[in-house]
């Protein structure tokens, strides 16, 4: 029986209420990861908690677990930017390997950039639909500086102008 999204969220919040890096917190995230191995926000929290362990326990085992959890998070999220960024930080700081972290950050930046372009285009479009032309054009000028060749932003700006035309 799968947990409902609300139940997952409730358990994650319950885990996060324990002190950062405490054994109780790590256990709560581990338990949730066993129940739902594809719940990425929990996997990211688990990896951070493992690094923040205040006890001087087996650090190398924590690192191995943290890396495995982060690679799972990247895989099950189909290389989501936030999972890639978390793995990249881990590889850079824990493994002291900036060369290996570089393509991970680069891929995260590429994905986040695509998301930002899509989000801005959508925002300009709905501002236009509501005839909020000033807000749409203000955002458009910023968006077109960052993405000068974006077709979806140009299309949204054109639409917003059409909506405002009487």
């Amino acid at each position, binding site marked *: 029986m799968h947990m409902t999204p609300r139940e997952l969220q409730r358990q994650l919040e319950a885990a996060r209420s324990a002190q950062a890096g405490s054994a109780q917190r790590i256990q709560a995230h581990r338990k949730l990861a066993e129940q739902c191995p594809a719940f990425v926000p929990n996997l990211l929290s688990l990896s951070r908690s493992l690094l923040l362990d205040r006890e*001087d326990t087996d650090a190398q085992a924590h690192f191995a677990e943290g890396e495995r959890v982060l690679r799972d998070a990247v895989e099950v999220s189909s290389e989501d930017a936030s999972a890639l960024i978390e793995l990249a930080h881990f590889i850079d*700081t824990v493994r002291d390997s900036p060369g290996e972290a570089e393509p991970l950050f680069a891929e995260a930046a590429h994905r986040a950039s695509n998301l930002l372009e899509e989000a801005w285009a959508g925002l300009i479009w709905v501002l236009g639909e509501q005839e909020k032309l000033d807000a749409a054009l203000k955002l458009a000028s910023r968006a077109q500086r960052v993405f000068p060749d974006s077709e979806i932003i140009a299309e949204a700006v054109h639409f917003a102008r059409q909506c405002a035309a009487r």
Partner: protein
Amino acid sequence: MRKAIAQQSVKLGDIHATLQHVAGFPARLRDYTRFQIQRMLDQRDFSIATKKELQTALKLLKEQKRLMEKN
């Protein structure tokens, strides 16, 4: 402002125990603050630690802050 000053006075040896076991941990900088480490790098003063050790120390202090904020 107070938070920024507090961040500058964190010593490398104050970061969480697990993080002190990472590859290349510059143990000789344990008693130095972020401010002191940053200043050594800025002034290219490599008398206490190498450039790489100073960079790693700064990276770990930054990572500790990020992990605490994100958690």
